[in-house]
């Protein structure tokens, strides 16, 4: 969008302005090819979900189901699907609210406040990026038991928030450093407190970067598997990915039912992608890493 705008205002003879962007035939082919590649696994997943168990083994995999029988989907929906959906929403929303609040305030401090050890503490936090989550699994499992939150949604919030913090602070601090320092100094000189400058100036100005980190982290947390697998066990505490995993044990041999469960698990994000469309990509890009 901004590209187009700057183009139209550029004072360059018309001959030299870029041709109106058009996709060549080759580009179309590449775009369609990736579209196909991206969607193919889902086609089969959905198709398998409608097939009968014997049909799955007798008919060719690429053949559409003989009849579009939703029985597998109804089976899944009768289970804990909606409970799991709600759990996922709760965990992601709560985690994201906490992440945005505490990571943005820390980023503000890293970007604008002068204190001893700023660079070192910043590096120490961002270094959390390289820690494999699996390395922390056992201690966090033990900790969760000690805190008596094992097998609850609360157990997930801690690690989810913590592991989202390094990348979030990295992106937000970078973004806030780009906000002209004058804003900060002017506000301080006018007698505003740091927290006022943060809430009234920096937080609103960092909105685009916040959208980016929220989208990225939300998708990652929505799809998080390992912590949810280890820190919860009962079916009404499972998040969506884990509920489908549990179906896999429950309907071990009923592949169509598993595929139906997978399809239903993909529905929420499919819908989200479809509804938000280019807002999503623009949002992610606006605050993405620029060094």
């Amino acid at each position, binding site marked *: 969008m901004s590209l187009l705008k700057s183009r139209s205002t550029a004072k360059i003879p018309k001959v030299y302005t870029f041709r109106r962007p058009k996709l060549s035939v080759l580009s179309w082919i590449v775009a369609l090819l990736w579209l196909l590649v991206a969607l193919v696994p889902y086609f089969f997943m959905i198709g398998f979900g409608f097939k009968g168990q014997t049909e799955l083994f007798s008919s060719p*995999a690429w053949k559409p189901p003989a009849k579009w029988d939703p029985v597998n989907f109804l089976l899944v929906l009768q289970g804990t699907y909606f409970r799991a959906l709600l759990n996922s929403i709760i965990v992601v929303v709560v985690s994201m609210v906490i992440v945005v609040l505490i990571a943005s305030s820390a980023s503000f401090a890293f970007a604008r406040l002068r204190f001893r050890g700023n660079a070192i*503490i910043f590096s120490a936090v961002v270094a959390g990026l390289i820690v494999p*989550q699996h*390395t922390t699994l056992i*201690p966090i499992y033990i900790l969760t038991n000690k805190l008596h939150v094992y097998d609850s949604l609360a157990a997930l919030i801690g690690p989810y928030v913590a592991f989202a913090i390094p990348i979030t602070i990295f992106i937000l601090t970078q973004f806030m450093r780009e906000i002209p320092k004058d804003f900060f100094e002017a506000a301080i000189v006018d007698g505003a407190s*740091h927290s006022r400058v943060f809430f009234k100036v920096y937080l609103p100005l960092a909105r685009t970067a916040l959208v980016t980190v929220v989208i990225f982290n939300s998708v990652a947390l929505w799809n998080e598997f390992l912590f949810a697998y280890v820190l919860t066990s009962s079916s009404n505490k499972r998040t969506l990915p884990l509920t489908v995993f549990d179906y896999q044990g429950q309907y071990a041999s009923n592949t169509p039912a598993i595929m139906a469960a997978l399809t239903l698990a993909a529905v929420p*994000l499919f819908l989200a992608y479809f509804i938000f469309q280019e807002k999503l990509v623009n949002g992610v890009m606006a605050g993405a890493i*620029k060094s």
Partner: protein
Amino acid sequence: MSASVHKLVRKDGKKAQNILAPLWFLLPALIMVAIFIYYPVLATANMSFKNYKLFDQSNIFYNGFENFRGIFKDLAFRRILQNTVLWVTVSLFFQFFIGFGLALYLKKKFKFSGLYQSIIFIPWALSGFLMGLVWKWIFDDNLGVLNDMMLKLGLIDTPVPWLSNANWAMAAVIIANIWYGVTFFVIMILAALQGVPNEILEAAELDGCGKAKTLLLVIIPYIRPTLILIVLLRIIWITNFPDIIFGMTSGGPNQQTHILSSWLVQKITYDQDWGSGSALGLLMLCVLFIFTVFYLLATRLEKDSEGN
């Protein structure tokens, strides 16, 4: 004059008053990171020197470097190390170039480009583990879609043992991983491309640069710092991403498709050998740390020698 003096005093006063301010801004984030990242890493480091098996809790004791020795002596270790290198390099290579290509196309606006852009996200509609389950069915030796199609098209005469042969299985999990990770590069590179000022591009065109030349000599050097950073992030994330492997092969056949991180998860959850798992985790962390330091040094040195 007096106004500025007044301001200075207030400024100083504020400063003195706010000496603790950074702390309040930082503390919540630091506490979370300390509890859920740093403390666990230290606890893991401690546990890696213990004989600690979940099914044998009466027999927990410090055993020196026994866990590390066990890992190096494991018959599967060499294979798993090779797999990890292969998994990271091949996945990264294809994800990067496919992602770069798509980003170049998507940079231009076209009809339905909004809709198309959201399709870029589509691989991320399911968690890696669940996506692995779907890919498992596509690669299935006997019932799989891929073998079925290739047989029909006459590309092969006998089904490819995609998941039962270790090498084919490794190829299969990497293909699935490439598919899953392209999205990241498209978004990140697209963002970087949008950051290239239009004036530079126009100047390049005025100077008679062709498309390829503009890309190689203008665009890529401009976004290079971003590329360096996202490649590093991606290497770390691919290394720490066992989900697809678990969904597709669980490391089988016979441990032959494990990478370090999936092996680690298996040690923790299935083998319940927490001592050995911790040792492996500590090793991974050290390797990643050393790699990151060298990577950053190397890219920075290069930059310095260019005179930036």
